[in-house]
């Protein structure tokens, strides 16, 4: 049985944790430290923290990240506002394992190379956000889904890989927060085009969706957000993470 990583992504904003739908309508969910403690108890594989205000505000909340990370005894990725290798160094020192770059992957690809050269490829994750345009073509967006980039997803994924990224988180903006399942066609297009792990994100509503991200989407790992913080779509907050036996029976053993 192959274990596929299942990664909760926590969105940070408004000095707390929030959850968006299609990158809009952030809903405030309280203190991320409580959520991290629960994911720790449930022995989650890995966590990714994304500060969705950092790029716009031009700052990284280092002390806050330290507080959150000190509760996490699993690998932690952080993304949001990273524009220099010095900022990456500061994050590593505070207990972050992986630096997630999104806007910088497009605007300053050298940053990926610089971080990878010093800390290794495994320490840099390129996060690529994709939205379909009017003609149903997949387009890359940066700056929290607000700015369209010139490159298409496959070209950008290959460029990030060549620059030294060790992993790609591929998010469908159209599916994010919808519980409607991943865009497996998009996942497959990118995962088949690069030889580094691609992490599926955007739209997961069930463990069955995880399976499809691997079998149809050819992804190496799966991420989700809403599914881990809400009981169901439109319902109240409930931090959850599938149990080991649930993942085995409904996911890993069915691959």
């Amino acid at each position, binding site marked *: 049985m192959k274990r596929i990583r299942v990664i909760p992504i926590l969105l940070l904003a408004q000095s707390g944790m929030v959850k968006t739908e299609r990158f809009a309508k952030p809903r405030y969910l309280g203190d991320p430290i409580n959520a991290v403690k629960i994911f720790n108890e449930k022995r989650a594989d890995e966590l990714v923290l994304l500060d969705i205000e950092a790029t716009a505000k031009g700052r990284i909340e280092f002390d806050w990240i*330290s507080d959150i*990370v000190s509760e996490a*005894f699993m690998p932690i990725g952080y993304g949001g506002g990273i524009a220099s290798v010095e900022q990456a160094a500061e994050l590593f020192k*505070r207990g972050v394992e992986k630096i997630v770059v999104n806007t910088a992957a497009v605007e300053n690809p050298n940053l990926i190379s610089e971080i990878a050269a010093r800390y290794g490829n495994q320490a840099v994750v390129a996060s690529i956000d994709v939205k379909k345009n009017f003609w149903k073509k997949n387009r890359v967006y940066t700056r929290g889904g607000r700015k369209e980039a010139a490159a298409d997803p496959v070209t950008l994924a290959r460029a990030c890989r060549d620059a030294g990224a060790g992993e790609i988180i591929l998010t469908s903006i159209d599916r994010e927060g919808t519980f409607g399942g991943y865009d497996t066609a998009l996942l497959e297009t990118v995962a088949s085009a690069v030889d580094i792990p691609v992490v599926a994100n955007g739209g997961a509503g069930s463990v069955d969706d995880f399976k499809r991200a691997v079998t149809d989407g050819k992804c190496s790992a799966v991420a989700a957000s809403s599914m881990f913080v809400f009981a169901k779509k439109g319902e109240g907050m409930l931090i959850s993470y599938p149990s080991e036996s649930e993942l085995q029976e409904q996911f890993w053993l069915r691959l």
Partner: protein
Amino acid sequence: MITIIDYGLGNLGSIKNMLVRSGIKCTISGDPDVIRSASRLILPGVGHFKYAMDTLHERGLVTVIQQRVREANVPLLGICLGGQLIGRHSEEGDVAGLGLVPMDVVAFDRARLMQGEKVPHMGWTVTPHSDIPLFASVQQPARYYYVHSFHFRCDDPHDEIAWAEHGYRFASGVRHGNVLGVQFHPEKSHVYGQQLLRNFAAMDFGA
């Protein structure tokens, strides 16, 4: 007191976090005098083997570590790249390591990986281990978090204490006398890693 060796590479904060959480006294230092006075050493490391060895040489730490481990029998645990550095040689940068354990560090043989298996080997892997005090009371099945593109290759299979499978089975834990090395990250492996670090702190290595 455990000293976590600081040479500018590796996730020192995470290791300290886990030790403190486990009630184990530790300090982070790159000062040769502090390292000389430590009763136990942890050698962390994330990144490139050659860069790490160059840095250890520049900071005058290679001979300090070798002396303490070989002559004073101070127990040392190498983690991830730190586990590789205790070997004789690595294919990553084609350079000599600390030479504390008779093993080499080799790249994953991509020809032996199955379809869909990528390098680096990244993620949680169930890790069978030998019945030694380092793994005492670790919950079963023990699983640990791995991120690596190179792995140990021991001269003597008796030095192997843990194994993982990625395309093929490889040694992911080694012990040679008072020197231990693990390829995975106990500091990022929940209760499994916490117990391992507790065991390292309490283990009796004899005279």
